[in-house]
């Protein structure tokens, strides 16, 4: 049996393209067919099949004359938070109705320059605010995975749930997401794929609809660690248009995947052991430690004492920054406008109609914690706690090279199970938010299955700008875990 083109990893596809086993056009066409067949998943808000074929043909032409970028001919999906010139960009929100950016985000421009081919714009929680994809104005994404022997729909996680579902369902070879408090890593864990959040400043934020500017970071979603390394190299780099993007060289991350982690010290933080966490997650975490020790690393118990304060600090800082960033959506320059008798009424009506309940709730919280008299009690307090959390990590990273934790305290859950209780939903990100607050790189890799057959992820965290070590350890973990499970493609027959 020949391997389907959609089953290849990015690394394998690059090899196949290089030897002429298939063309970029054929590769794009195979993924367009998979994308169309997978419409029941609702993973994409906008499909760009025509653009994909034009880009694939241009890639084939470049390849013929020997111009080959690091992502040459690879079809990918783009979270619909990145501005794409001439392609509808919605942020999953009603308020950006009909917005067609006249410019391209830096990260997507970097990917196109590296030869990547756009398949479409991936669905997401509205303005990346959510952990289940249920807040998208365009309807929730369905997780390609279901519980064993159970045909109920599961959430894909969020906010980059369309990106992770697209990669898990073999619609796209890779996708880009954004991670503010776990929005790449948690859905990667729920969908059984690899999700990498680089260090804050590694990728440019220019052209990404801003949610929380001190936390937002773009990163790749792939099916293997190696593919994540390849994609990050194409995405990362200094950008004068983002003053927080860092001017340090982008290493060849794939070259770091030597398989040799002998002598590396891996921190295992006791504070990530939660009461009531499923035994399967505890067990997977123990296995992860054993796998790394078997490869020659040393597991070291460490303490990150302020861990439990990360989530409440995040839910002050992120809404505060969001309330400022989302002030721009006022019905004047782009998107939805709902008329009013006065300009103030027009703003109030537009924003009430344009934002969904979770975004409205966060904007209200953010406005309140920044308002006169409360700024010190809430916002400054949270930023001080953030310093404590960053210090916890800095102290631990004096003695370890990476930290191993579960990615999320649960596997994917069903629709509506948590959407009535914001705090229960926020707890999804309890293991991912601390590193976000500290700006550190983190990766989630699929490492096992829960008792009901849903994927579970393990998270590795690293030192600032040391994505290379994170990827190197993740690669060893991936090999040891030997995760080969994949979702049954139930969606293919839905319309048949």
């Amino acid at each position, binding site marked *: 049996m020949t391997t389907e083109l959609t089953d290849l990893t990015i690394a394998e596809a690059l090899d196949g393209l290089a030897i002429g086993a298939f063309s970029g056009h054929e590769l794009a066409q195979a993924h367009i067919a998979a994308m169309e067949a997978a419409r029941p998943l609702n993973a994409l808000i906008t499909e760009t099949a025509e653009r994909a074929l034009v880009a694939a043909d241009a890639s084939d032409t470049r390849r013929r004359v020997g111009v080959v970028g690091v992502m040459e001919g690879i079809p990918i999906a783009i979270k619909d938070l990145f501005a794409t010139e001439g392609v509808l960009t919605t942020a999953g929100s009603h308020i950006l109705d009909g917005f*067609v*950016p*006249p410019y391209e985000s830096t990260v997507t421009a970097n990917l196109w320059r590296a030869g990547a081919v756009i398949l479409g714009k991936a669905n997401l929680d509205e303005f990346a605010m959510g952990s289940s994809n249920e807040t998208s104005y365009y309807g929730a994404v369905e997780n390609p995975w279901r519980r064993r022997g159970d045909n109920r729909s599961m959430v894909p996680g969020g906010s980059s749930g369309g990106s992770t579902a697209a990669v898990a369902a073999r619609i796209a070879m890779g996708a880009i997401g954004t991670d503010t408090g776990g929005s790449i890593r948690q859905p990667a864990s729920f969908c059984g794929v690899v999700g990498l959040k680089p260090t*804050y*400043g590694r990728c440019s934020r220019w052209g990404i609809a801003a949610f929380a500017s*001190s936390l937002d970071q773009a990163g790749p979603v792939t099916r293997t660690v190696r593919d994540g390394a390849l994609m990050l190299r194409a995405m990362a780099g200094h950008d*004068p248009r983002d*003053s*927080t993007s860092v001017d340090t060289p982008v290493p060849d991350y794939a070259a770091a995947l030597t398989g040799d982690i002998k002598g590396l010290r891996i921190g295992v933080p006791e504070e990530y052991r939660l009461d009531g966490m499923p035994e399967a997650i505890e067990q997977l975490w123990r296995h992860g430690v054993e796998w790394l020790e078997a490869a020659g690393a040393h597991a070291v118990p460490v303490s990150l004492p*302020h861990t439990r*304060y990360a989530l*409440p*600090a995040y*839910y*002050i800082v992120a809404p505060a920054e969001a*309330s400022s960033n989302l*002030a721009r959506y006022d*019905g*004047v*320059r*782009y*998107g*939805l*406008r709902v*008329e*009013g*008798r*006065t*300009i103030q*009424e*027009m703003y*109030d009506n537009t*924003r*009430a109609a344009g934002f969904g309940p979770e975004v*409205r*709730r966060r*904007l*209200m*919280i953010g*406005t*309140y914690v920044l*308002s006169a008299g*409360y700024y010190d*009690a*809430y916002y*400054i*307090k*949270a*930023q*001080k*706690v*953030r*310093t*404590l959390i*960053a210090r916890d990590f800095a102290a631990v990273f004096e003695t370890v090279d990476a930290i191993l934790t579960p990615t999320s305290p649960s596997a994917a859950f069903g629709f509506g199970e948590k959407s009535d209780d*914001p*705090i229960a939903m926020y707890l999804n990100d309890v293991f991912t938010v601390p590193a976000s607050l*500290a*700006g550190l790189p983190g990766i989630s890799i699929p490492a096992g299955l829960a008792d009901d057959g849903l994927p579970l992820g393990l998270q590795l965290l690293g030192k*600032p700008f040391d994505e290379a070590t994170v990827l190197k350890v993740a690669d060893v973990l991936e090999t040891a875990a030997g995760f080969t499970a994949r979702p049954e493609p139930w969606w293919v027959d839905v319309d048949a």
Partner: protein
Amino acid sequence: MSLDKATVAHVAELCRIKVPEAELEPMAAQLNNILGWVEQLNELDTEAVPPMTRVVEVGMPMRDDVVSDGACAEKVLANAPASAQVFFAVPKVIE
């Protein structure tokens, strides 16, 4: 601290989001639930802790103060819900 209906109405106004009268009470309950939860931060003594002001240790980059973009009014206005000549159009602001 607990938000009452009047404070929620004030915050909604600051936030430029119309919240109908009937939704003020439920919104207050939701916001109080979240604010009550974040108040656990007060368990920490942060008197001597500086607030985080930057995520990574880099200096503020400087560039020459020159025009680097512009003269593209048509592009800028292309997505406007309403425009006139080279301007965004809004309800009358000055009587």
